[in-house]
């Protein structure tokens, strides 16, 4: 009736059985929706009418001639670039400094991580308020004699994307710091000791010991940050809705406008698929570079 637990078949089935609950959830909530989006992207579905017609590659052809798509595409890259620089670069520096701090370390760590648990809509509301022309940021700049840098953050075509990327980084950098900190704890202290004996200063220790030791962790943080930044929607939508005009339009907000607000689910799905492909390519390229360096 039952399989012998020591049999070869049971040994093979065991891991599958253990994986099955999580795999089922993953298939239902990740694989199937992704497949559906891919399927919709080949149709003219309006999201309402039960009828949808197969239109082949029409939606993808439209993408290439859609100047707003390319504006959003460019903005998304700038947006992700800024966030990667802050979350990976600054995150690593903060983590390295925190690793050497013993007094009040827990308090500082908590302060940095706290924004991670705040709802994105709340983050958007806070920053929207701070970025108003009469908001706290401009007031502080005026008070400390840097009034020349005060700007209408959310209304400035030049500043808005960077301002929102900074706000997003503020709310997510804590996660990078925690991952880097965990990685730093795994670095052998003997390596630092050897570097000191060889006469390395702290900067050289960081360059020749910390950075190489953290390469796998950096890859994880990079990919996490990249995927998170590409799929961001809430903070942009709740602050500017992609404005002024389209200066903060990123692919996710454009996808939402076309799909949900203009009832072009087919075309919106094509934008979603494009987003998926872009993230996948960027991730593969980064992994290839990492692997080559490791070799």
């Amino acid at each position, binding site marked *: 009736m039952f399989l012998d637990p020591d049999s070869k078949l049971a040994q093979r089935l065991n891991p599958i059985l253990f994986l099955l609950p999580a795999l089922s959830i993953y298939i239902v909530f990740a694989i199937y929706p992704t497949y559906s989006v891919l399927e919709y992207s080949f149709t003219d579905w*309006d*999201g*309402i*009418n*039960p009828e949808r017609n197969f239109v082949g590659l029409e939606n993808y052809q439209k993408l290439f001639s859609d100047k707003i798509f390319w504006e959003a595409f460019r903005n998304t890259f700038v947006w992700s670039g800024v966030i990667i620089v802050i979350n990976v670069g600054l995150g690593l520096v903060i983590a390295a400094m925190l690793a050497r701090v013993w007094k009040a370390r827990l308090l500082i760590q908590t302060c940095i991580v706290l924004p991670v648990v705040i709802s994105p809509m709340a983050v958007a509301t806070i920053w*929207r*308020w701070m*970025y*108003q*022309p*009469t908001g706290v940021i401009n007031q502080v700049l005026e008070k400390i004699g840097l009034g020349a840098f005060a700007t*209408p*953050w*959310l*209304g*400035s*075509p030049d500043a808005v994307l960077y301002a929102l990327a900074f706000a997003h980084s503020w709310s997510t950098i804590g996660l990078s710091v925690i991952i880097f900190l965990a990685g730093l704890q795994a670095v052998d202290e003997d390596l630092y000791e050897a570097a000191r004996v060889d006469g390395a200063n702290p900067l050289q220790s960081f360059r020749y010991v910390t950075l190489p030791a953290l390469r796998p962790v950096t890859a994880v943080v990079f990919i996490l940050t990249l995927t998170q930044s590409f799929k961001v929607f809430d903070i942009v*939508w709740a*602050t*500017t*809705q992609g*404005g*002024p*005009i*389209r200066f903060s339009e990123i692919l996710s907000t454009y996808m*939402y*406008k076309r799909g*949900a*607000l*203009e*009832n*072009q689910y087919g075309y919106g799905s094509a934008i979603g698929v494009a987003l998926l492909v872009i993230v996948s390519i960027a991730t593969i390229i980064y992994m290839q570079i990492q692997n080559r360096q490791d070799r």
Partner: protein
Amino acid sequence: MNNFVRISAVATTIAVLPALVYAQSEVVVWVAGEPGQTNVYDDLAATYNAQNSDVTISVVKNSSDLFNPALIPALSAGEGPDLFSFGTGPGQPAALIAGGLVADLTDAYFENDWGSTIPEGIVVQTSSDGKLWAFGNEVETTGMFYNKAIFAENGIEVPTTWAEMEAAVATLQGAGFNTPIGLGAADKWPISHWQSMMFGRYAGPEGIENVLFGDGAWTDAPFVAASAKLQEMGQAGWFGSTPVAIGYGELMDRFWAGEVPMTFTGPWVIGGGAEAAGDRIDDFSVFAFPPFEDGQRIHPTNSIGSGWYIRESSENKEAAIDFMNYMFASQDGRVALLNAGTVPVGPLEEALSEAQMPALAVDIWKTSDDYAANGSVPAFLDTITPGSLTTVSYDGLQALLLDVMTPEVFTAEMQSAWAAAKEAGEIMLPGGIAER
């Protein structure tokens, strides 16, 4: 014998209880609106539930931004609300109707004598192919809200001509008000209130109808002129130096705090304003924006805020219709709406005799009534045109204010989106319902 009675009573209760539970039908109502602005529907549901033990009305409120994206997938899945508020006019509901997602209310119209409540002009906006699809309600208007105290301090009278308006703005700028007229343009949609009013002023009701239901185009001269005037006002700093950086909520906070002397908005702000301004609420009033050009007429902006639709697959259509009757046709419902500053459609004399409308609401409706004879224009073009046109308009209006787009290009982009929507059949052609 006693045991028999006891056991019978318990058995009967157990048998009947599920039936009682099932007999009570739940009508789920979705309402779009910002927090605090739709509380009246909670009150109406509570009163209705207390009077009707067999029906439970459950009101679900969602912000305007998120309402449609939540509603449409729910309806498409055959679920979602039994009764819901949604846009009207030629653009918005066309896809819902074509998809068979909303119920035909024509029978309800005749059975419940809705004709005595809903004016014909509103039936036209909520019907197509001779069928009524929604109970149009919540008459909305827009007007120039101003701070009487600031006007008095600076010796400004309510402007009635363009020259007086220019003088008032100049005086306020001279008195240190960098933003004489507040405009929360970061949110995009508040600019469309100006657009709707100015398009209406320059083109008149016939000009607007000619585009919506005829062969007119958004590139026609009046719309270009209106766009140019809006841009000119922006360039002259009437809305401050950076209106596109300011959110609507933040702007209204500044208005009620007395930092901004004027703002162009509608009666939905009155409830929140009374809370924000407290005793100073009497410092505020409303006037009709003066004509922009010599010889131009003032056309009040009147729209229905929404239409109330019933889901086609709802099993509680009768109960939903009964709740609509209570809200919009009964004296109790109409008085409750008026007290909350929401104006129901139809004759108001009876309800007004019992209602206690806020003074500001009376002021804004007076400005509308004063010019009613000139013919009204839509207050919210963005709620009656397709989403694709709304996106183009919103972005274009910000571009006008930022001075990076010409009025000609703006109206050409609008027309292009409008023509594409027309070609794609996204525009419903309303026309009233057949007499019986």
